[in-house]
């Protein structure tokens, strides 16, 4: 076996001590009729062979593209110090700090994570990690239902479609979800329709537990968050903001616009895209809602000698104590990613974080200009930070052709929001501090050529699937 230590002699000594002649005897309690058929798996690969095999698989992925794809996952510079710290076995081969006396490293790092996210969001109580932005958003929505004892949540159509889908699964027909449509008027197109929100909030006999909106929203646009929060609160509902943590260096924090809960994806805090995870579900709230908050919390305390120390606390919300009365079933979480985010924030610092966010805005502005010049203007007029949609006829086909030219031209919106006619020709593109001027120029040049080859008249009606 690849990593096992036992020699034949070791095994013989153990069998002898137990008083049996074969390890098979230890499985005699499995009824004969239920014993497994032989395992059919490829033969074991020695480490050298396995390493070559894995490198070959990794090499089949294309990751050297000029990428303008964001849509909830953003590439950022990660100083090498970050991953070298994360590679220490003391971090990643420990488990949940059930024994605080020998887990102070993990516990203090979680307390620091809670403090860092509290600074970013302005909300004082931060759960020490959920699975990802989608699960955190679903948990936020469930919190609003538990706290208000109401069963209906309103979610903006411009929340990440995967988050909305996840929220629907978590609600599973037990609780109601209504989608707040996008505004139709030109100025605010792509952001939340506030009149529709007011209507949905005032439906008789259908009280609303919470309103969920994203800042920036899935289309990259900035929402009137303060106004949304006021409407929610006036109807007795809670307001949950879906945030992007890097943007909080420059955008108003959720506490400033009255959000009761902030949920979001922590991946932009230096975590690699790695095809979907592991990521970091951020969930933060006010002190008033702490008992509704699912997941782990670490608090500061003292030891018997009065020394400052940290421990998991308010555990009566958790499944191993409360079983069917727990706030959530979450057990294993994303602690290592909370550490990763903290180390990244500590390494890059507040000025670095602000510069990362600002560079995204700068490069995105350059991208907007370059794409508009070749005939792909923005789809919306509302302000954005570092991501926006452009109008490209036959977006899917053009996107595919650009891939052949080494350019990952964002995301054809029809792929994820097929029921939104206004987005049919939309290509969602983003820039970060890693985006270079050369990449922008190459994208614009290639797009220009592709658009020249796509005469308007030949466009099929309803090309969207």
């Amino acid at each position, binding site marked *: 076996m*690849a990593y*096992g230590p036992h020699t034949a002699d070791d095994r013989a000594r153990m069998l002898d*001590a137990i008083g049996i002649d074969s390890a098979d005897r230890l499985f005699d*309690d*499995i*009824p004969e009729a*239920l014993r497994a058929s032989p395992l059919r*798996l490829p033969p074991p690969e020695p480490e050298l062979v396995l*390493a070559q095999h*894995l490198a070959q*698989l990794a090499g089949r*992925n*294309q990751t050297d*593209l000029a990428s303008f794809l964001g849509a909830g996952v953003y590439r950022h510079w990660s100083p090498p*110090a970050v991953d070298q710290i994360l590679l220490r076995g*003391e971090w*990643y081969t*420990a*488990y949940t700090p059930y024994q605080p*006396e*020998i887990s102070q490293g993990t516990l*203090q*790092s979680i307390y*620091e994570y809670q403090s860092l996210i509290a600074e*970013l969001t302005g909300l004082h109580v931060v759960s*020490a990690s959920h699975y990802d932005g989608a*699960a955190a958003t679903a948990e936020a929505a469930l919190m609003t239902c538990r706290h208000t004892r109401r069963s209906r949540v309103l979610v903006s159509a411009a929340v990440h479609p*995967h988050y909305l889908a996840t929220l629907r*699964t*978590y609600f599973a027909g*037990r609780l109601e979800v209504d989608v707040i449509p996008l505004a139709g008027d030109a100025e605010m197109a792509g952001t939340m329709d506030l009149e529709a929100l007011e209507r949905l909030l005032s439906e008789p006999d259908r009280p609303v537990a919470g309103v969920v909106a994203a800042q920036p929203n899935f289309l990259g646009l900035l929402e009137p968050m303060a106004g949304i929060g006021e409407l929610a609160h006036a109807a007795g509902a809670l307001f949950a903001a879906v945030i992007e943590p890097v943007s909080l260096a420059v*955008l108003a924090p959720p506490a*400033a616009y009255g959000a009761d809960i902030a949920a979001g994806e922590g991946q932009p805090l230096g975590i*690699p*895209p790695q*095809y979907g*995870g*592991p990521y970091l579900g951020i969930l933060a709230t006010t002190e008033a809602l702490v008992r509704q908050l699912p997941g782990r919390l670490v*608090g*500061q305390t*003292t*030891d*018997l000698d009065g020394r*400052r120390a940290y421990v998991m606390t*308010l555990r009566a919300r958790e*499944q*191993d104590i409360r079983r*069917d*009365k727990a706030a959530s*079933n979450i*057990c*294993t979480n994303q*602690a290592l990613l909370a550490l990763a985010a903290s*180390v990244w924030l*500590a*390494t890059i610092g507040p000025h*670095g974080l*602000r510069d990362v966010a*600002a560079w995204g805005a700068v490069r995105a502005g350059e991208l907007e200009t370059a794409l508009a010049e070749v005939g792909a203007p923005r789809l919306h007029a509302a*302000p954005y930070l570092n991501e926006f949609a452009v109008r490209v006829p036959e977006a899917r086909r053009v996107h595919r052709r650009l891939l052949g030219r080494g350019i990952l031209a964002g995301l054809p919106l029809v792929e994820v929001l097929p029921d939104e006619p206004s987005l049919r020709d939309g290509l969602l593109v983003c820039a970060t501090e890693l985006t270079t001027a050369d990449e922008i120029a190459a994208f614009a040049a290639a797009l220009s050529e592709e658009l020249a080859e796509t005469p308007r008249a030949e466009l099929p009606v309803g090309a969207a699937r």
Partner: protein
Amino acid sequence: MSVVGPRLRPNLFERSHPGRGNGKIPHPPSDALDRLPADARREQPPALPEINEPEVVRHYVNLSQLNYAVDTGFYPLGSCTMKFNPKLNEWAARLPGFAQLHPLAPDEAAQGTLQLLWELEQALAEIGGMRAVSLQPAAGAQGELTGILMIRAYHRDRGDTQRMDVLVPDSSHGTNPATATMAGFRTVTIPSAPDGGVDVDAFERALGPRTAAVMITNPSTLGLFEKRIGDLLAAVHDAGALAYMDGANLNAILGRFKPGEAGFDVMHFNVHKTFSTPHGGGGPGAGPVGVGERLVPYLPEPRVLREDDGTFRLERAGERPTSIGRLRSFVGNTGVLVRAYAYIRAHGASGLREVSDDAVLAANYLKQRLHGAYDIPYDRPCKHEFVASASTIRKRTGIRTLDIAKRLIDHGFHPPTIYFPLIVDEGMLIEPTETETLETLDAFAEALLEIAREADTDPQAIREAPRSAPVRRLDEATAARQPNLRWKPLTGVQMPCPD
């Protein structure tokens, strides 16, 4: 113990000095943010710590040394399978082709990862005796939710809407009843029989037309194989309910028992237990779910599909209307799954079977060595873990399991899981795993035997343990009564700062 590092460290915020730690990112033009509307802008920058890189590195390296970990010593935490985490797997997950791949990259740009995921699904289905597998759930508890939601959808599709009960043995993980509640079901707790198995009479009494599902951990959290599992599963299906297997203890039965073959309808795999992906100080894990034929239509989306031409693709949103939908964004904790794949390929069928044989052998050996000094409430061959109890020691000396656990720290060991399962008085759940040497197993046994003797000769030393850890026992009551959950400058000044 072996991992005592420097004592307490100031926190990140206390280390901050304005002006330090710049220079990682060039400064953008000063008008960079001018196009943003003022009311969307942040007025005060967040008060994050300003620290130069050498100090950040020292902070985290010193903090890490306050941790006990598998890489520093024996970690027999029952139910958690703290086996060695192969370093090749860490290397593999960091290969740029895997790590830098965007989850919405077009399928043609993601063929390597898609092939890996597809092959992993096949391997897990084979190991579990299941028809199909979804890799989406981010952890075991999310796998449970996935499974129970699929069962709910199955009953609904058949018009069987009165099934609202989920039967759960009293020895189960807390996630089982918590999952039932999240899915809108009522938990019915089934007592254990004196032999540690499910009480069959109580079980059959509780089964009926209102039963939606039964959640069984096999081997159980007592480390015992459920000998009557065939009869139990037959009764479940006769009652029209479905059977969920909590796969937390799969490390005991690889190649010996395939839950799907035995009749389980759905199970989850804890890849951070059985398949060696690191526990990360609390996570991440991944909780793939395997299903039998009946539940295949309900699997979460997206599935990984292989086309006739041998290429791979992700299922599109809405492509399979019977799906219960998404449990999270994107396809899953892929970086974790790369490690699990590497582990399975390193072992193959023979290696995986040997993993279980050695894990079970080590647990039975340790159990044998503790005999006489500790109570062994269920004294028959165990699987990969077993329960010992300090019940008699407590009656004789007043020393509790908690004290013994803390004293183990002074001997250089991570304590076992204690007071779980809840049904054992003064219980400690010990899981040695297959990657520990015989010398380590012996040293751990000697330490527990020594503590049992010490309970008679010097109980005070045990009550005051640990003495050699970075901190002594903590004031958990104050932490809960006056929660201090984030750093605030004022608090930092008031607390004694060690440097």
